[in-house]
């Protein structure tokens, strides 16, 4: 029986030893553009944000002085920040759960043969290809407090009685529901494609062998599909979590953090405080609050992924 072997990948140092000096130089040369990109556009801005969070820097000025952890203290005492922190976790975990769950269903459906499969794949990919600002404008109308098409449909079908109305963007809970809905809609294509690739890569013989051995659907799911999907699933989840934790587009375009700053996530609050409000130091403090957590999560997930590497 062919099974997936789970093994620790060889250390990078050993792999490097096996290369000739010429190949090593070429390797470094090939890596250089990516490294320069990461240093210039990721590492330096990050260090700058870290630096600014310890200052009283403001948008209209290039002068600043060090204020130590004052920005962090002030931010941590703010009710709006605490709400945004809670929202960030809700936003990330609920949307990721939905994305993985729905992506799995879609991927399994797309594994089957049926007429119009090409068209379905194309339609599923559409949200990923559409510019988020344009797409969110469409959603803005769908969730509009006065003209929501959902409400008008619910009214027409009798679901909503006289005087009943859903204020999708005017209620803190419904606001979060709207934000998560749009974000799930936006990330679902990517997740589906990734999971589809993972499912397609499992050799059919593995399942056939399991069938012969009398494995049921649950045993197959947990003992074959899930372990073999783990590396790719980890990549999808890691990407989704980091992307969602740091994203402000949907929140900003749909609710701008309202009503009364109740639907902010940390990224949108950082933008409001740092760019719109001009308090760059405070905005930077809000923005980098999640960095330690993101680092821990990234390390954990990469470890899991590495342990589960299929060789």
């Amino acid at each position, binding site marked *: 029986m062919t099974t997936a072997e789970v093994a620790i990948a060889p250390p990078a140092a050993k792999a490097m030893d096996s290369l000739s000096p010429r190949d090593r130089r070429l390797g470094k040369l090939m890596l250089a553009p990516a490294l320069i990109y990461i240093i210039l556009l990721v590492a330096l801005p990050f260090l700058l944000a870290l630096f600014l969070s310890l200052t009283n820097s*403001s*948008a209209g000025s290039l002068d600043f002085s060090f204020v130590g952890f004052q920005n962090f203290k002030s931010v941590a005492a703010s009710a709006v920040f605490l709400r945004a922190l809670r929202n960030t976790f809700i936003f990330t975990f609920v949307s990721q759960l939905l994305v993985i769950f729905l992506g799995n269903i879609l991927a399994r459906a797309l594994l089957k043969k049926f007429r119009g499969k090409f068209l379905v794949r194309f339609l599923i990919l559409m949200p990923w290809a559409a510019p988020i600002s344009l797409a969110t404008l469409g959603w803005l109308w769908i969730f509009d*407090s006065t003209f929501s098409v959902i409400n008008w449909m619910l009214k027409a079908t009798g679901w909503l009685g006289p005087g009943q109305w859903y*204020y999708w963007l005017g209620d803190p809970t419904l606001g979060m529901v709207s934000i998560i809905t749009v974000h799930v809609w936006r990330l679902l294509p990517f997740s589906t494609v990734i999971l589809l690739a993972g499912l397609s890569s499992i050799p059919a013989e593995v399942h056939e062998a399991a069938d012969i051995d009398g494995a049921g659907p649950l045993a197959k799911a947990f003992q074959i599909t899930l372990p073999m999907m783990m590396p790719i699933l980890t990549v999808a989840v890691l990407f989704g979590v980091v992307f969602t934790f740091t994203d402000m587009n949907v929140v900003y375009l749909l609710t701008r953090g*309202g009503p009364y*700053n109740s639907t902010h996530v940390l990224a949108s609050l950082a933008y409001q405080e740092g760019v719109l409000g001009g308090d760059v130091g405070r905005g930077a403090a809000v923005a980098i609050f999640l960095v330690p957590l993101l680092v821990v999560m990234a390390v954990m997930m990469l470890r899991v992924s590495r342990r589960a590497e299929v060789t």
Partner: protein
Amino acid sequence: MQTRRQFIMRGGKLVAAGVAASAAGPTIFTRGAGAADKTLKILQWAHFVPAYDKWFDPFAKEWGAKRGIEVTVDHVGFADVVPRATAEVAAQSGHDIHMFIGLASAFEEHVLDLKDVVGTLDNKYGKQVDLALRSTYNPFTKKQFAVSDMWVPDPGNYHKKIWTDIGQPNGPATYEDLVKAAPEIKKKYPQMQIPIGIGLSQDIDSNMAVRNMLWCHGGSIQDKDANVVLNSPETLAALEYAKRLYSVGMTQAVLSWNAASNNQAFNAQETSYILNSISAYRTAQANNLPVLENYFFVPALKGPTGIMLASEHVMSGYVVWKFSKSQDTAKEFLVALIDASRESMLGSQLYNFPSFYGAAADPGTPMNKKIESGAAWIAKQCNNDPFGSKPADKLALLAKSQPWSTNLGYPGFANPAEGEIFDTYVITDMFAKAATGTLSPRDAMAEASNRAKEIFNKWRKKGMVPGGSKDR
């Protein structure tokens, strides 16, 4: 490389020229269109009345063409004006002139002092309207950080038929009228979603609307000396009023509105009263909407204190960046723009009101009569709207809007702290929380007051805002 002697000689000449220029009184120090001044880059907002942009862009380009200057005008949405300024300051490059539609005071350090421009305009046209001065001048640092060419009145917009049906054909006159009218409107028009459409959301229109409510109840964020006085019985009264109004006449819809939402709700006849400039009305005209025949205006509402005030809807503030390579050209352009105040007002279909009324005076009017003459010309346009209002005097009240219009920062001057409070929605959130019962009015006030003091103190430490000794 200059020798010490050359340096001293040139410096001496510059000082002499400066002294001569000062002796001649405030004027613009021009050096002609030299090689460095051949371009002028202007960042302008995308006007709420698109017709204005069609007037402004060719105006700027023609002005430049006559002087051999290549003028570039870039438009951004109103929400991008401040982020764009932030980016340009950080990069120390970008446009020469940046137009703000609210407060430019946070950028004071990076802009030229435009006292000479305002001095020239004062000499040509007389004083600017007080709210324009209060939005563009910092009395603490004594810097004229921006020049305003226009401001926009913010009247109440009411639906004539609905208000006639409840026995008030002339619309509301006081804040109490709204509370009394709302249940009656609900009774007569049960299908109407939001009887009274005053926004309580994180957007520019709501930001102004809640300030109006605060001021008319006698409250304010700061006093005239920039002490934070939000924590007051007057603020509490305004919040308790907002709670009453919300419970009888509004829904959660107003908590989610953006800058266009109140226009859309009024134009769809889903609300009977909003606070807005005439841009929504012009949209109704352009599209010949059914609401048009019932689209009427009232002045600012009176509060229980007798105060009747509304924030300007837009206050232009043109700044010239210190990093600009075309500073003199930029200053000349700003004077030319204000020279064209009549064309600007007509180009915006009476949306823009000149900040220098004297610039709209009849040609040849003596200096001491210019402001009066300009006001008369403005009144003539409003009394007989050249853009097809029916009746033609529908906008007549706008001509008398100056006494009930004021600046952000009332009763003091605009300053960066007021700007940050505006841009981070501290006051709208206070009203929204109190109105919806999320917090008690007292707790909502305390929360907002603490945040306001924190923001003011930060700017005081930077030496840009005075006050503090009488903070409450």
